[in-house]
């Protein structure tokens, strides 16, 4: 089975500092669901940044969607980024755009016409319960509402891989579960999902999800997901 992402002895350091990630090797398989855990400062966000192509590794090899990322010219990166949905830890919404326009952003960047994007964006607003607040700007939304907009923005383009950094950190348990169900639904449609989280309760919600654990920049593989193809996913509740 061809992997979605393959890391081979990857190291990452910022500037001249010590390595944030050391000898990280794994494969992510299509349609699988991964949780990435680890203490604060373990390198979760750095690993996700490599996954969503915000950084190139300092050493080692990365293949994404079957292509060598390290040798890939910069001009080809946008095409790959459009295949990846990202939920940032700090949401990173465009502050002067409305909730509607933030969610529509990936579709507009991809060149989808206004006529074709209005329906899906409204559907997504309805799903995250923010239809009434479609024209609100992020500054007027609560932390949880902003997070839902950020998640809607990440998934609206039906990405092949979804990378989420602490996506449920600012929402109540009910909303966290609903978001997780959305991720699971996307996963069942074939999207590979990688969720970095501290929340160990989330890990128990999805049976069959694989766990990767980072400890001081080194990856351990408690569920064996990185050595074996994933099992079918079962969402509890």
């Amino acid at each position, binding site marked *: 089975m061809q992997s979605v992402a393959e890391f081979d002895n990857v190291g990452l350091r910022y500037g001249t500092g010590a390595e944030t990630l050391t000898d990280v090797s794994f494969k992510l398989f299509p349609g699988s669901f991964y949780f990435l855990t680890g203490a604060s400062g373990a390198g979760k966000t750095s690993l996700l940044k490599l996954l969503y192509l915000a950084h190139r590794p300092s050493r080692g090899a990365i293949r994404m969607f079957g292509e060598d990322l390290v040798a890939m010219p910069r001009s080809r990166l946008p095409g790959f*980024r459009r295949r990846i949905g*990202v939920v940032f830890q700090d949401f990173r919404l465009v502050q002067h755009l409305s909730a509607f*326009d933030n969610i529509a*952003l990936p579709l*507009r960047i991809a060149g989808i016409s206004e006529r074709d994007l209005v329906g899906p964006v409204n559907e997504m607003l309805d799903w995250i319960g923010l239809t009434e607040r479609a024209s609100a700007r992020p500054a007027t939304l609560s932390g949880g509402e902003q997070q839902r907009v950020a998640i809607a*923005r990440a998934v609206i383009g039906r990405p092949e891989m979804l990378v989420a950094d602490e996506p449920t950190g600012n929402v109540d348990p009910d909303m966290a579960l609903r978001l997780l169900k959305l991720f699971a639904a996307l996963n069942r449609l074939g999207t590979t999902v990688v969720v970095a989280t501290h929340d160990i309760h989330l890990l128990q919600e999805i049976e069959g999800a694989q766990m990767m654990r980072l400890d001081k920049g080194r990856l351990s593989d408690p569920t064996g997901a990185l050595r074996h193809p994933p099992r079918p996913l079962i969402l509890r509740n």
Partner: protein
Amino acid sequence: MRLPFTANPHERQLIPDGRFTGPMPWVMAIMLFLSLIAAAAALALAQSARQGSESLSRQATVQILETDADARVAQQREVASLLRKQPDVTAATLVPESEARALLEPWLGDIASDSGIPVPALVEVEFSNAPDAARLQSIKRDLSRIAPSVRIDGNAQWLKPWFDLIASMLWLALAIVLLLLFATGATVALAVRGALNTHKGTIEIMHMMGGTDLQVARLFQRRVALDSLFGGVLGLALAVVVILLLGERVAALEPGLLAGASVPLYGWLLLLFIPVAVTGLSMAMARWTVLSTLKKML
């Protein structure tokens, strides 16, 4: 239909316009105003130089320094008559003695009008082409047979330093226009770099969503184009007012060396074209600045 260098209305929202609030349009207006004034000066000087070289350079003045008044007048008529027979002479005009005396008045005062003081008899000659020194010498030889005391001065000879000065000023004006255009380009580059820094977060988000550098560049090109166009129109309007006012002052001068210094029709078209060209230049500069800056990002 959308032109390839412009962003659509929804893309435009990503970088709020903020036109007329920042210094950029006003700086562009000042730059354009100065460029247009310098260009207008260059065009007027070029026009003046052309007219001068076309008319004044074709003229010469013949002086007959005969002391005997009757002989002087007779020689003046014969000289004019001989000159008119020359194939390259289009006109030979006798200058009345009163005019010759009036020419001396600024130097001699009222005494110049004293008929007791002899003044040279003058003949203004116009050639079909500006005569060179050899041709003037040849004519002098012919005229000497009628009037031994004859002198002939080609205007081109004494006008040469003036035309050299005009040529230098013309090149200086063109250099000023080029320097101002260069400064305008540098201003655009600085403004775009500042705006890129201001909107760095939005640009990073666009990149993470798969936005290309060209998509980002289009946003800045449009913004810079609007600022340049606003500055260009304002600078042009001010420059036209100033050029027209100066033109009136030049027109009020006595006919002389600066009389032909006006902006010709093709010059006005060129002046109108400058703001459009600067807008294009600014857009190209904005595009280059954005693309070269974003190259350093992943």
